């Protein structure tokens, strides 16, 4: 916990890492099966988003736009564009849900989403996500909350074997799957909301998908409120957890800021042992815990002499900074896309809300960068090592199968960083 600067000090962003709320909302809707995300705004927001995620995931991305034009922006309250969109979408495909999310344009003119949603006779969830507020992480979280508020049916009893996982946006599809598997190892039936594990994990489907293929089903969302346990991961997801508990106060909620490193994973195991009454976890988990312990010791020499810059979303920073500092890694600078209560808790000497120009100016303070592929040019110019994490990663294939958390992923993550640091030092030594 070091010095934290919450406000951007410049009048502009230069080489931004920040992404917009509507893009976070799109991604959340991609975690619902058979869904058509519908972005309300000019056609460009949608086009940029589609291309962005297609390149990141190397998968086709289903999304539509209300295609607001200048004339409509003045004349229409949004209802015409949205009603027409729903009609036109349904001419071609049969989604189980339309995920309506806004952008800056309709929010500036004040389109009333709740009123418009009532005019539409089709399963639809709406969320207000202007891109001049919040960011990627909040767009995802607001969408998750909207899915809960608008779809989940209230319940009064709980099924102790059923568990709901609310993951933050920066968890990869495989990470969500690993958490589900981990918990299922204790005998739970786990449902994740949103669930990218089966939709954007990069699987060869039967045919090209015109809608999201995989993810939690609408019916599963509707009946989430009878789960015995709710686990939220990432501070951005706490409001979603609270919204779910309103549907059934009998549910037991446990929050984790992240699931990276030995201690956080131990806490999860303690919770699961307490919930199940088991005295020990599945054998494979115990085995992986020992491997992580060994990985920490094997990697500490390299990481202990490495100074880090970590760039990303607040919830993502929380986990990465913890995992590195656990083995003596010195996180000198953490750059967050947006402000968040998470920032004061980060294990970093200096935390700021900023961009990659800020990172460039602080280049003397770190050796290895952990951040998105925009950091590549920075690493090259400043002669730094780089481990690519977060959005976007357009340069490497296999992003959705990276996993850095729990005992198993934690071990892989430390190895990758330690090797990158060692390679970088050798590269510097060779001149």
């Amino acid at each position, binding site marked *: 916990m070091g010095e934290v600067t919450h406000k951007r000090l410049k009048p502009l962003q230069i080489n931004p890492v920040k992404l917009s709320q509507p893009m976070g909302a799109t991604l959340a809707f991609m975690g619902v099966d058979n869904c058509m995300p519908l972005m309300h705004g000019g056609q460009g927001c949608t086009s940029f*988003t589609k291309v962005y995620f297609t390149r990141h995931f190397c998968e086709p991305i289903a999304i539509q736009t209300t295609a607001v034009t200048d004339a409509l922006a003045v004349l229409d309250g949004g209802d015409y564009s949205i009603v027409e969109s729903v009609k036109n979408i349904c001419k071609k495909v049969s989604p189980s849900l339309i995920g309506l999310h806004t952008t800056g344009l309709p929010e500036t003119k004040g389109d009333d989403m709740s009123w418009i949603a009532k005019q539409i006779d089709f399963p639809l969830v709406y969320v207000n996500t202007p891109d001049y507020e919040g960011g990627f992480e909040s767009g995802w979280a607001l969408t998750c909350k909207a899915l809960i508020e608008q779809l989940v049916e209230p319940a009064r009893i709980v099924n102790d074997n059923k568990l709901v996982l609310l993951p933050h946006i920066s968890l990869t599809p495989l990470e969500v799957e690993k958490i589900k598997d981990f918990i299922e190892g204790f005998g739970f039936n786990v449902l994740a909301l949103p669930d990218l594990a089966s939709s954007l994990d990069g699987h*060869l489907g039967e045919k090209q998908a015109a809608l999201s293929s995989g993810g939690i089903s609408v019916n599963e969302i509707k009946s989430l409120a009878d789960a015995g346990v709710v686990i939220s991961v990432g501070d951005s997801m706490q409001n979603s957890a609270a919204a779910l508990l309103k549907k059934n106060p009998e549910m037991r909620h446990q929050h984790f800021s992240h699931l990276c490193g030995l201690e956080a994973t131990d806490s999860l195991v303690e919770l699961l042992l307490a919930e199940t009454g088991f005295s020990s976890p599945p054998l494979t988990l115990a085995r992986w815990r020992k491997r992580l312990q060994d990985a920490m010791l094997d990697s500490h020499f390299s990481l202990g002499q490495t100074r880090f810059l970590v760039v990303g979303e607040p919830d993502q920073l929380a986990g990465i900074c913890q995992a590195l500092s656990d083995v003596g890694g010195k996180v000198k600078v953490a750059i967050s896309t947006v402000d968040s209560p998470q920032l004061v808790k980060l294990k970093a000497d200096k935390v700021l809300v900023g961009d990659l120009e800020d990172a460039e100016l602080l280049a003397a303070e770190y050796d290895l960068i952990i951040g998105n592929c925009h950091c590549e040019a920075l690493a090259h110019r400043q002669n730094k090592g780089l481990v690519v994490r977060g959005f976007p990663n357009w340069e490497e294939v296999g992003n959705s199968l990276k996993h850095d958390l729990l005992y198993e992923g934690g071990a892989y993550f430390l190895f990758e960083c330690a090797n990158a640091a060692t390679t970088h030092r050798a590269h510097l030594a060779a001149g």
Partner: protein
Amino acid sequence: MSQKPKIKELLVESACEHNQTRKAACNAPTPGATTGGCAFEGAQIALFPYADAAHLVHGPITCLGSSWETRATKTTWPGRDLTQVGFTTDINLNDVVFSGEQKLKDAIDYIMAHYRPEAVFVYATCVTAMIGDDLDQVCKQAAAKHGVPMVPVHAPGFVGSKNLGSRLGGEAALRHLIGTLEPETTTAFDINLIGEYNVTGDMWQYKHLLDELGIRVLATLSGDGRIREIRSAHRARLNVLVCAKSLISLTRKMQEKYGIPSISLSFYGRRDTSKGLLAIAEALGDTDLIRRTRTLIVREEAKLAAQLEPYRAVFAGKKAVLNTGGNKTWSIAAALQDLGIEVVATAVKKATEDDREKARAYLGDTGVLMMNPGAEQARLIDEKGAHLLLAGGRSLYTAIKKGIAFADVNQEKKKSYGGYAGLLNLAEDLKNALENPVFKLAARRAPWEK
């Protein structure tokens, strides 16, 4: 308002011969059934390649946050390559309520203090256009203060498509840059390359040939471009539109204002590259230049033929289905034919009348022009016995299902297929695709599904 271009005029482009028969070039998009980028993206594509200028996007984070560093527009500019630097005011709620003009002014001052660009392009976006921030005024004041051109670009996304945005980008250059500076010297063979963005270094595949012929590229809009050069572009003898119908309004206006004639061509594939070089020489009208160009073409084609020799056997008898849009419907088809691959079908759904005519000319009577490629391509692969599908990533499934090779047409965003030398890149990539066992293997049925 007087500073802003008249969008109606741009939509009804008199220089476009098809405008009588076609629906308005940029008619309103259908809600819920629209693909493709917005006007802002079009303007960005047209102007971002100026590496010595800062490109400041005045809007919320979506516009730039999702789009910077997405286009490999190469440059030889020795300073900091500003094509790969993203600048945005990232406006917040406060700016929406109380105006973002002050923030914009401060942002320009910051850029001038820290990056010293030759110009700043300031892009309006939907939100800042809606709240009425006065870009013209801010730019005028900033230009007076800093002594370099400040170019307001009025192409907010909601005015229309990418194509219209490119026109508006050209309009901004015409209004604020072209004709504001005299070139140090002029030659009889000065040309401008318009619409060549040098993505993956496409321009460099043929630029050295122009140099060798003594044809000087005075200015470009905007590949490997310089602000100083585009400012003096009005002294060129010829405008060369490279695969870019969207900028036809610009070249027409330059003809009216400065008397510069223009030609439109492509440098994709052997035949088009040769035709293009000759067309430039002929338009410049010098008999010696024409003779030298013919000699150069013979030499280059012979060199290419020798380099392609090892591929002949691989491509002999191979048939391809092409599913793309715009000028690629025929330009890639032509390049494939140059390699000895038969193009049995090409998609023309997302192509203009002009593109369709060209596609028909290249494919001849037997080739199929697909109006509904999503439904047609699988059937045509079977009927025609195609070996190769070139398409966007979504069509990979079709190729896998049919067990034939697949090549992503968007590869060209990573690697240049332009000019004579680019054809070798294309040949190598297609050979690799055709010889790769992965397409059949990946389609293998699981043991439990047999």
